């Protein structure tokens, strides 16, 4: 057997359903002191972020849009990464990828971060100027249309993500309840009807999450970035924004899995199979990153109108060339170079390293849109008459960004106290449907496909 082409059989396949349940429930019940120590540090950093937010609000108010660029970046970054990460579980469930089972809940729990991010959207609604007298996708709807409809869209996305998390975790929360010896719930029994409805319902909700996420990417990217920079009217940009979301969502799951593998006892669930599977997706999306960027850039570069040149100079080649360069290298070149080797893809550290690089690159990619967009004062022009100077982060900006990111991670950790981080019922279903069988001189994994 060539070890490069046959990953070892998952350890959890060798466990009984009882052992698996008890193992996961035990870990869920007692996360350990390290967990609370990290949560305490994150809570402290989040508190600093709150102080930064109060300083931002009191010193600059909501009318000085330029000062909110980094706050908007933090909001957009969490949206692009965490809220897109939910899609990983949704898409792999649709594709019936059985290797997804150990990472399903890890992905779905990012829906809780969406709730936190919704809070970050609220102050931005006061900062975002009305669309009156400037180009936008809202035609002649009232000037506050993006404020209303972006909020409804984002709110629906958050509710949808939480619904997926809630329904997908019902059987596991019942298991936690049963193991704790609590009174049986009136909610979940695990009968045939409930399983059928759960599976079908999750598939439908997952489809809607995909449909809505793409549209929210469009709304956020256009209303909070593109329409604020005169002369920028790139039809590929919303799709590029969404693609960056898919890329960083996959990257975020890889990094989260690696951290969980290293710091918790979940090593036997999160094995090379999961990293290998996601690394192939990340490689493909990283290549698409270049394709989408090139498609948008090329038209602007070839067009060479003053409006197009102004946009390119502003967000790519002059004012914000450093974040653009870092984004290009870290979202495309480096992950491509790392993940093009199968021997690296088929490790746990290789895809996680590429994922970490993509996450940093995505931050710079988001920064080069939202910080410049919030720094433009005159919005009614058809092109940038003069290129604004770079808006470098102040101490308050750094506090706000660190606080927002810490708050997002803290939210995820607290959600892990409510929802078991391993989807036990999906793992047990995997045990039922998958076996190792002898095929001549090798052992192979055999999958039952009842559908």
């Amino acid at each position, binding site marked *: 057997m060539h070890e490069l082409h046959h990953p070892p059989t998952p350890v959890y396949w060798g466990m*009984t*359903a*009882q052992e*698996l*349940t*008890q193992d996961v429930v035990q870990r869920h019940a007692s996360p350990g002191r390290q967990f609370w120590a990290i949560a305490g540090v994150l809570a402290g950093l989040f508190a600093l972020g709150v102080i930064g937010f109060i300083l931002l609000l009191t010193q600059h108010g909501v009318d000085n849009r330029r000062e909110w660029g980094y706050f908007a970046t933090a909001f957009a970054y969490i949206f692009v990464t965490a809220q897109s990460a939910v899609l990983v579980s949704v898409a792999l469930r649709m594709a019936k990828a059985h290797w997804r089972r150990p990472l399903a809940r890890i992905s779905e729990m990012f829906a809780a971060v969406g709730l936190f991010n919704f809070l970050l959207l609220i102050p931005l609604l006061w900062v975002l100027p009305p669309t009156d007298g400037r180009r936008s*996708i809202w*035609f*002649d*709807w009232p000037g506050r249309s993006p404020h209303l*409809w972006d909020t*409804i*869209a984002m709110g*629906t996305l958050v*509710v*949808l993500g939480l*619904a997926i998390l809630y*329904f997908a975790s019902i*059987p596991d929360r*019942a*298991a936690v309840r*049963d*193991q704790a*010896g609590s009174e*049986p*719930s*009136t*909610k*979940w*029994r*695990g*009968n*045939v*009807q*409930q*399983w*059928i*409805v*759960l*599976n*079908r*319902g999750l598939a*439908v*909700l997952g489809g*809607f999450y995909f*449909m*809505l996420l793409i*549209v929210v990417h469009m*709304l956020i990217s256009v209303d909070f970035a593109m329409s604020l920079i005169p002369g920028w009217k790139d039809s590929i940009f919303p799709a590029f924004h969404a693609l960056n979301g898919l890329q960083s969502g996959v990257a975020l799951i890889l990094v989260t899995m690696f951290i969980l593998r290293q710091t918790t006892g979940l090593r036997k669930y999160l094995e090379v199979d999961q990293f290998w599977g996601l690394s192939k997706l990340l490689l493909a999306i990283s290549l698409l990153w270049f394709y989408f960027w090139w498609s948008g850039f090329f038209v602007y570069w070839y067009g060479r109108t003053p409006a197009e040149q102004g946009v390119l100079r502003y967000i790519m080649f002059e004012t914000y060339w450093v974040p653009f360069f870092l984004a290009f290298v870290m979202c495309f070149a480096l992950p491509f170079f790392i993940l093009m080797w199968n021997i690296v893809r088929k490790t746990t550290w290789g895809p996680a390293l590429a994922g970490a690089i993509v996450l940093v690159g995505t931050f710079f990619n988001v920064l080069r849109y939202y910080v410049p967009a919030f720094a433009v004062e005159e919005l009614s022009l058809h092109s940038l008459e003069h290129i604004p100077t770079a808006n470098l982060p102040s101490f308050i900006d750094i506090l706000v960004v660190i606080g927002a990111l810490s708050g997002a991670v803290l939210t995820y950790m607290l959600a892990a106290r409510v929802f078991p981080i391993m989807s*036990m*019922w*999906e793992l*047990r*279903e995997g045990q*039922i*449907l998958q076996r190792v069988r002898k095929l001549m001189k090798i052992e192979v994994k055999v999958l*039952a496909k*009842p559908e």
Partner: protein
Amino acid sequence: MANKNVLGLFDNADTAADATDGLMEVGVNQEDFDVLTGSPYPEGAFGEKTPVHHIYVFPLIGALMGLSVAFLLTSGTQIAYPIVTGGKPILSFPAMTIISYEGTLLGAVIFTILGIIFESRLPRARLDPYDPRITEGYIGLLVTCPEERLDAVDQALRRGKAVDVIHEGGRSFRA
């Protein structure tokens, strides 16, 4: 006479599937028993009747309602406040698309959530016999039968190698 519930608990899925044959022999129909499991098994794996559900109807109704409301809102606004822009017609569909799409999805999502709750019968009005070992991988065969046939069902479950038989009200047999 009123129907009663009895739960047979099995530590093996194959044994539970075989035990349903024994239940049929004592006159229990497919409609009279349910299978309680800690994870989903392929439909029909225990010889149970596949239940009818209407989960796909909910998103459809929700989507239609959401689309209708969004369409009425956008077209009504444009007719009430007519502004000709760039020679475009008053009722311009591109300008209505985003709101219509959002409305459609909002309706579909809300109705799907309600549909899952309704079709899963959550929360349940009454508590049938249950055992926490089901979430550990045990299989429960929950049989509903007239009171006079309880003993026959009980015996069938025992013959089928149930490790526990739990009656409504708490009477239980342990193998």
